[in-house]
């Protein structure tokens, strides 16, 4: 570990918000990993009497079909994290590719790619995602794809800006003079300098993607064979008058997970870009 990265870690570890976020996040990851062991019968199994309130025979109560809400929370954590991570991975790949091509080559390539980016930034993203999922049929893959397609544009813009600021530095110019290929310059010389910006943006994007997924499955656009937190809230709505816990508990799960990821992202931002400290 170099001196610089040690300092970055130290700044992160000293940040109470970031540590709290990392702790909560570790809990959610552990719950997701342990879900098949804790609730091997799966989240759809009817295990007890319907409408059982929390802290009765079940820790978090049951829903209107007698399914254990705790099992839904544990299995839902897997889906939330999976969607958040995979969607973000696709967004990072797409955004970095388009942003670095536009920023590095400039000129006509830049103006064409930025026009495309502008289009994706203008179209209302949530409605766009709804339309995509509705047309492609709800499934885990279509949800992830739709989230990625409507969310990559801001990252591409960010990467483009960073690449432009690095492109004309002397060490990059000297690589050009040495006759190094464009692909190699972008991958080896430029992108390593952009990576801290991308990491911070991506960590916050995981949280946004999780919120997005919960909104889609709340509207009934999730994969019907998969239990998600948003779906639990959407289903619990009908019983809201009598059974508050069916909508409240999964909401707290989403809130805590997204909050934890945001705290970690802010902490990373402060650790990696200490001079840009904002919040």
């Amino acid at each position: 570990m170099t001196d610089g990265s040690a300092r970055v870690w130290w700044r992160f570890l000293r940040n109470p918000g970031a540590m709290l976020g990392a702790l909560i996040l570790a809990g959610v990851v552990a719950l997701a990993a342990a879900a098949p062991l804790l609730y091997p019968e799966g989240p759809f199994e009817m295990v007890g009497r319907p409408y059982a309130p929390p802290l009765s025979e079940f820790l978090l109560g049951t829903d209107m079909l007698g399914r254990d809400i705790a099992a839904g929370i544990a299995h839902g954590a897997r889906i939330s994290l999976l969607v958040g991570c995979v969607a973000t991975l696709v967004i990072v790949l797409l955004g970095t590719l388009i942003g670095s091509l536009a920023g590095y080559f400039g000129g006509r390539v830049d103006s064409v790619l930025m026009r495309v980016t502008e289009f994706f930034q203008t179209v209302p993203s949530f409605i766009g995602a709804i339309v995509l999922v509705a047309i492609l049929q709800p499934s885990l893959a279509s949800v992830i794809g739709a989230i990625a397609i409507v969310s990559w544009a801001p990252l591409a813009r960010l990467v483009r800006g960073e690449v432009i600021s690095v492109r004309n530095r002397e060490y990059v110019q000297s690589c050009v003079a040495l006759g190094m290929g464009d692909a190699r310059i972008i991958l080896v010389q430029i992108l390593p300098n952009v990576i801290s910006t991308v990491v911070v943006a991506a960590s916050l994007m995981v949280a946004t993607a999780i919120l997005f997924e919960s909104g889609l499955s709340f509207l009934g656009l999730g994969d019907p064979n998969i239990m998600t937190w948003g779906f639990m809230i959407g289903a619990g709505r009908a019983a809201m008058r009598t059974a508050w816990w069916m909508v409240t508990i999964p909401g707290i799960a989403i809130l805590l997970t997204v909050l934890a990821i945001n705290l970690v992202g802010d902490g990373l931002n402060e650790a990696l870009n200490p001079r840009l400290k904002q919040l």
Partner: protein
Amino acid sequence: MWQARLSYLLRRFAHGLPIVLAIVVVNFFLVRLAPGDAATVLAGEAGAATAQYMEQIRAQFGLDQPLYVQFLSYMKNILVFDMGYSFRHGRTVASLIFERLWATLLLMGTAMAISTGIGVLLGALAARYDRKPLGFAIVLFAIVSYATPLFWVGLMLIIVFALNLGWFPTSGIATIGADTGGLGHVLDVAHHLVLPALTLSFFYMALYTRLMRASMLETLRMDFVTTARAKGVAEGRVVRRHVLRNAILPVLTMAGVQVSGMLGGSVIVESVFGWPGLGLLAFESLAARDLNLLLGIFFLSSLLVVATNALIDLAYTLVDPRIELAGRSKRND
């Protein structure tokens, strides 16, 4: 001066045109992405549509014609806002959308006023009381609100303020059957508006609070602020006249960018509260698998974003006179 503004506005709209065109093209091809025959997809795939309606759909989209003919006729229809017919509702898509539009605009406008107003206020307070309990409390509130899903906020507000306390109605835009008329109707709608508008503004309030706080803290460190203080200007006046005006610009920009996000949020808020706007219409069209209507809503909401972006740019030139109207190359002052 305002001639320059008009031409600027026109130029901004012209800039938006290719995007509108692209949206039309994307809409056209999206339908063809769907598995199966586009006509059955558009009709809502169930056997509910009559043969006559299926013929109508085929004629409207010209599904038996070559692709470029289909595209041209689709373009021609869209240009006159002919977005087809919704079999489920028994009405044209355009009439449905325009009937629902104003409810969404009312909801979004109110939410935008609440979120920018309270966000600017909270952000300014948080910066003024930085590293003090009040500042910390505001930052904490903003961080938590920023992570809360909109639909859950709405449901919690319903449970607390509508079901338990009974202060506000649970859903709808007006009391059904109440013939109050005039002012009574306005008050009734306002009463119904409170919870949905608060829900929709929640996330954006948090966003603007964070932004305003950061922007205030940055401006407070600027040289001209120090100069003002050195001249002996009272602290309250420094904040009001020198800092706030500059710090508010990023919030304005962000508010413009967020119009598109708020449209998405309104789908969720409207389906939680049964608020009869475009968002609820989108939700209903999802449930009915009425894709033609959904695409119409998608098209109109994209148009709305293009238009508001242009208007926000114009508003920006009013707030910040440093922004040039004439563009970079020709400067004639």
